[in-house]
């Protein structure tokens, strides 16, 4: 009855040198709603789509402030995300206490990744089922990092994760070269456009999405509801123009994304050998980066 006897335990290598439990944990990230992160030369921006489990409930928070100079967007198991969030907040506070200065992002992200690695090598643990996009600003400028359940981390110019994020990724890949010089407002709009792409036919409102910005001249700030409304309105106005440009390739991209979820190869996964038709990877992050 077992399709695969090597996928039961995180401490079991498959004969091909893969660890399925880690790859399954990475699937959890795709169950969460989409989140994107991008940066210019001055600022970093996070944007997420929020879900509400029922009409009577509030929307689940996806963006968490870590410190004045950074925050995270999570996708996957929210509870796991909150553990990592608490850990990061703690590290930042300790750093401020000891050194009286904000913690460099790269260092914290590496620590989080090392922490995640532990869960991939012990039979009595499991990998975290959450992806983090860390956005922040330190001495070396703005940063977008992606922390993966596998214990890998990546330094990105722009990134998207979560459900149907391939469409957002496609948008970002087409636009990211213009981000370096973009203004903060433009950056936020790009983020919303990317989200809109991954929302397919759903409508982006100030209720179902939230945005956060951070830069050298401003602390990490969450934009929600009223403060977000003008941006939503602005991209709605741009939409017809932008949509026209998106349509042709956008349709292809979305088809791609749909196919990716159906189990066929997405863009990034050609790098990993396929075994037994393992679940589709939505591109970008090769499972274990071998």
């Amino acid at each position, binding site marked *: 009855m077992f399709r695969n006897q090597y996928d039961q335990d995180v401490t079991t*290598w498959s004969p091909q040198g893969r660890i399925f439990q880690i790859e399954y944990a990475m699937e959890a990230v795709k169950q969460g709603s989409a989140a994107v992160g991008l940066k210019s030369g001055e600022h970093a921006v996070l944007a997420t789509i929020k879900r509400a489990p029922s009409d009577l409930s509030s929307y689940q928070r996806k963006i968490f402030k870590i410190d004045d100079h950074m925050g995270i967007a999570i996708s996957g198991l929210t509870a796991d995300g909150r553990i990592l969030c608490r850990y990061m907040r703690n590290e930042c506070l300790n750093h401020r206490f000891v050194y009286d200065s904000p913690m460099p992002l790269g260092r914290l992200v590496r620590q989080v990744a090392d922490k995640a690695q532990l869960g991939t090598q*012990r039979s009595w643990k499991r990998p975290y089922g959450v992806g983090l996009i860390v956005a922040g600003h330190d001495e070396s400028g703005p940063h977008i990092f992606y922390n993966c359940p596998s214990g890998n981390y990546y330094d990105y110019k722009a990134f998207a994760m979560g459900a149907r994020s391939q469409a957002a990724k496609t948008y970002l890949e087409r636009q990211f070269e213009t981000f370096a010089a973009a203004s903060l407002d433009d950056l936020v709009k790009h983020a919303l456009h990317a989200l809109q792409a991954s929302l397919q036919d759903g409508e982006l409102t100030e209720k179902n999405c939230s945005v956060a910005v951070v830069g050298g001249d401003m602390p990490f700030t969450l934009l929600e509801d009223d403060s977000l409304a003008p941006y939503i309105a602005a991209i709605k106005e741009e939409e017809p123009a932008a949509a026209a440009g998106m349509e042709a390739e956008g349709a292809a991209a979305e088809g791609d994304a749909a196919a990716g979820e159906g189990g066929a190869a997405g863009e*990034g996964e050609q790098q990993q050998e396929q075994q037994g038709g393992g679940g589709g990877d939505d591109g970008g992050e090769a499972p274990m980066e071998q």
Partner: protein
Amino acid sequence: MSGIGTGYDLSTGTFSPDGRVFQTDYAQKAVDNSGTVVGIRCKDGVVLGAEKLIISKMLEQHSNRRTFPADRHAGMAVAGVAADGRSVVSRAMAEANQYKSIYGEAIPGHVLAERLGSFMHLFNLYGGYRPYGVSALLATYGKEGPQLYLVEPSGVTYRYFGTAVGKGRQGAKNEIEKLKLGEMSCREGIQAVAKILHQVHDEEKGFEMELAWVCEESGRHFQRVPQQLADEAEAAAKAALEAEDMDD
């Protein structure tokens, strides 16, 4: 070595009837599928080079590091699972630090290599753990001169004049054997490594090369090869390869 389907290959704590621990072999497999990592010991230092596949064009340059310092005089290039690699590097840093605290001087290469070997071997002994999916090339330059070591997932440790691990290891090793390592300076070494990495790289996909060295020129500090030198070496390597193609 077919343990597949027998059930004897599911745990590090299980021997197969013919005396193998298959999980160790499988971990080695993870290394064999990874990007190529090359190390050579030249007359004045050690050069390490890693082939990094670019998984997204939106990645920043130098993301996904493969070479890491472990101390001022020692550093590693890791092939295999990147996250495991960092874990091994952290251990190397801790060992180097601890040695310095106790003995007041830098940890000799063979001690560090041996300690890392023991560390990685521990993960082959218990059912609760899995072996590291990492082979680490260790470059050191201490009192005993420049040295190159290889630590495998099984915990086995070797000292090499030059070696390669990862996907293109066989081709790379053949090329390394042709080099006159005893007469080569590190300046020439980085070019040789760049050339080998380009040679064994599977043409279709782009890759980023990461070069690091510990040598006289770097003040016996382990560091990434300065960007300009690395670019020059890569350009020279490409030119040399093209020239060879023309000859053929």
